[in-house]
């Protein structure tokens, strides 16, 4: 089975949810688009919605914080970060396992709250026999996981979890073999440090690079990331802001932009850029706008093979 990437959480900083106002707005926009048309059946209306309406009218990018699964088709699970998307990911694991204990390999970019907050709600952690190996380059990883479940912040202490949980320290810029998956971490610029991961399996390469600011004046840094992204089939990239924000009012906030994502992927000759870690203040229409702008920038600056550009949303599945 080919590798499959499943996005369980794609939002940055804090979870968000559609409001009643948002849903009414989507309905109203769909009705305007459908003015003068008639649909003989639900299927006709569904086909219209699926093919003729903008993504931001018929979908939502979603609101869970980072959690991205790499499904290798084997018995073990591989997942990046334990943001609030870890809760639905845990439901998926429990359903697929059908009472058989799971082995879950977690790769932590860093331990800021939005990247660990889903773990107390990760169902498999409460199932005896489950093995959870949490891989990280941070010395404070275990401390952070234990701290968020300590009283008075959470009713179930980390020590009460039924799963066998192991913390594994990884060395940056070293290729590690983890249950047949080659994983290379790389240091990124972010408060308290973050690490991207380059995953390789059966000739496919996926890079997970979130919570990473790129200082544009530093050519060596750009070249270092181009090497880290080199020839990747998919690059999941922190594109939290528009460029003007990222290098002005939000400079030094530890995040990047859609435009820099395109530039680095073009330098690296990567094939597919996936915009990720969406700003919680951005609604679906704004995020769709940022995606369209990134695609247009890619067209304007293309010099070789086209770079495919997507924006991640909760529920998206792609094959590298």
């Amino acid at each position, binding site marked *: 089975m080919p590798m499959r990437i499943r996005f369980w959480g794609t939002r940055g900083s804090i979870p968000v949810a559609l409001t009643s106002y948002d849903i009414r707005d989507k309905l109203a926009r769909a009705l305007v688009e459908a003015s003068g048309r008639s649909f003989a059946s639900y299927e006709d209306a569904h086909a219209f919605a699926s093919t003729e309406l903008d993504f931001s009218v018929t979908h939502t990018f979603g609101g869970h914080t980072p959690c991205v699964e790499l499904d290798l088709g084997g018995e073990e699970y591989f997942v990046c970060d334990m943001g609030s998307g870890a809760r639905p990911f845990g439901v998926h694991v429990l359903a697929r396992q059908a009472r058989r204990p799971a082995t879950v390999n977690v790769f932590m970019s860093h331990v800021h709250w939005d990247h660990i907050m889903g773990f107390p709600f990760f169902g498999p952690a409460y199932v005896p026999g489950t093995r959870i190996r949490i891989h990280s380059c941070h010395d404070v990883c275990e401390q952070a996981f234990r701290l968020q479940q300590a009283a008075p912040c959470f009713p179930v202490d980390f020590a009460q979890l039924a799963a066998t949980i192991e913390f594994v320290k990884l060395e940056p810029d070293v290729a590690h073999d983890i249950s047949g998956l080659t994983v290379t971490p790389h240091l990124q610029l972010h408060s308290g440090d973050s690490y991207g991961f380059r995953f390789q399996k059966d000739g496919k390469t996926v890079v997970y690079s979130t919570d990473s600011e790129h200082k544009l004046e530093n050519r060596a840094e750009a070249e270092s990331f181009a090497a880290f992204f080199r020839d990747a089939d998919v690059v999941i990239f922190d594109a939290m802001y528009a460029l003007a924000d990222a*290098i002005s009012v939000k400079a030094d906030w530890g995040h990047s932009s859609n435009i820099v994502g395109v530039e680095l992927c073009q330098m690296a000759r990567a094939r597919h850029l996936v915009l990720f870690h969406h700003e919680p203040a951005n609604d679906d229409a704004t995020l769709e706008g940022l995606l369209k702008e990134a695609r247009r920038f890619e067209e304007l600056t293309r010099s070789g093979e086209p770079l495919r550009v997507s924006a991640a949303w909760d529920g998206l599945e792609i094959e590298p």
Partner: protein
Amino acid sequence: MGLAARTFANALVLGVHGRLDQDNCDAFRADLMTHVERSAHQGGVVILDLSGLEYVSSAGLRCFMLASRQAKAQHGRIFVAALQPMVTEIFEISHFNMVFQVFPTVREALAASSLEAAAAFDQA
């Protein structure tokens, strides 16, 4: 990448040419900041004439941002003018059109600076 400088009353017009990217932005930024510091110090306006600019990358845009910040710190202003279609689009895509005042022509940017600057341009 050299900057061609012309002065019209309180406005300094800097012509930017070619491609501005990571390969040449360090030298460009140093040159630009020198002009901005001198002009803004005198309470003036800097107008970037981008009619000769073919392409600007994120690193180049950052030079404009730093110059704008420097000018504001000295109570000066920076306008951009006469963008080619591709650079116009890059300004829109990167949302720099929300950060900078963009004018279709250098003449219009000068008119927004001062009547004297526009008159000096007309007489030149």
